[in-house]
């Protein structure tokens, strides 16, 4: 079996009409695209639709995509645009409050009951502080740490420059340090 193709190779193939290559790109990026849309749209249904539409639009726009540039920031910019449009259409002004999952996820090591309670309390504390941040600070934190996006990808999603990502993140972390005592 050959090595898996990277984004650039798949994009080149998709631009040449290889639908299977595009489907592979979708498979590789659908989770991040959906979560990005969820963060911005604020509802699961809108995020699902935004991600679907973004992948359709990205496919039709592929020929405009400049080869050699990273695919994911370009895709996520389309996803973010779709998600923002849906949030606007829905008249949803308030940002989504992030919550911590309570169930144990598959593969998680089971902590002791005391450690689990402490860990949950700490998570709640940090997450509550993140949710109290201004929307622009909260989003930059969520993109960088919860979605694990690069600075360039965060900039694409938020429609700002990478320098602004850095400065917003720095200010957001300052606020969080003021609110959350050291562990």
């Amino acid at each position, binding site marked *: 079996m050959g090595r898996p193709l990277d984004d650039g190779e798949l994009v080149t193939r998709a*631009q040449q*009409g290889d*639908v299977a290559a*595009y*489907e*592979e790109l*979708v*498979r590789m990026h*659908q*989770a991040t*695209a*959906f*979560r990005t849309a*969820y963060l911005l749209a604020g509802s*699961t*249904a809108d*995020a*699902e*639709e935004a*991600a*679907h*539409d973004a*992948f*359709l*639009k990205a*496919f*039709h*726009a*592929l*020929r*405009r995509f400049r080869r050699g540039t990273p695919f994911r920031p370009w895709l996520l910019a389309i996803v973010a645009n779709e998600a923002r449009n849906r949030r606007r259409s829905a008249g949803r002004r308030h940002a989504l409050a*992030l*919550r*911590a*999952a*309570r169930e144990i*996820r598959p593969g*998680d090591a089971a902590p002791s009951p005391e450690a689990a309670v402490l860990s949950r309390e*700490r*998570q709640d504390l*940090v*997450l509550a502080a*993140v949710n109290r941040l201004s929307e622009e600070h909260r989003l930059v*934190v969520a993109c960088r*740490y*919860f*979605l*694990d996006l690069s600075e360039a990808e965060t900039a694409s999603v938020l429609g700002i420059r990478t320098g602004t990502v850095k400065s917003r993140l720095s200010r957001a*972390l300052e606020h*969080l*340090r003021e609110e*959350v005592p*050291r*562990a």
Partner: protein
Amino acid sequence: MTGLESELRNLASAIDFPEPPDIASNIHVGVPGPRQAAWGRRIALAVAIGGIAIGAGFAVPQARSAILRIFGVGAVKIEFVDRLPETQPVTRLRLGAPIDPADAPFLLLQSRLLGDPDGVFRRGDVISLLYGTPERVRLLVTEIADSDFTPEVGKKLASMGTHVEFVPIRGSVGPGVWIEGRPHAVRLPGGPARLATNTLIWTHGPITLRLEGAESLQEAVAIAESLG
């Protein structure tokens, strides 16, 4: 990385994100043609398929049904859903303002088989060529042109019981899609919703076309290939 940053990264796995949908298995895109990149904005076109008589319209309920499968054809997105939209009866097609074909925002494709339409209507950038009357439609050709490249992908909502077939159309960049079976409804951007009969959707250069009312796939393909 500071302790706080590590904590935030570790918190990522605990965030209650909904389960991502399996988009890759449900999305079906057409093959992009050489001219598609230069095509313009996709005009929204929404169609629902349901077991309702022709001549009705529908109102999309607030609670959406689950999307089971999606196809993209030119400017149109076809969604298969587990629950169809609610419908309400209407008796007359509202296709927009009547226009002279020469005033259309793009060069209209006309069928050599069908001849001149009985009426041409415009709603935004969507042009309808009507054969028959708004009360008794014989055939309807809808033409949707692109004007830039930030496509607004259109939508069709279909129940899984509906027959959908990909068919080759001479002159079309990718295959056309034939939707047959139960009547289905169409909604144009900014316009009211209504039901429709068997429909063929295909592309011709920068234009996405939709033919409604053909009695068979063969007739639909013959009409589609006569457009130019």
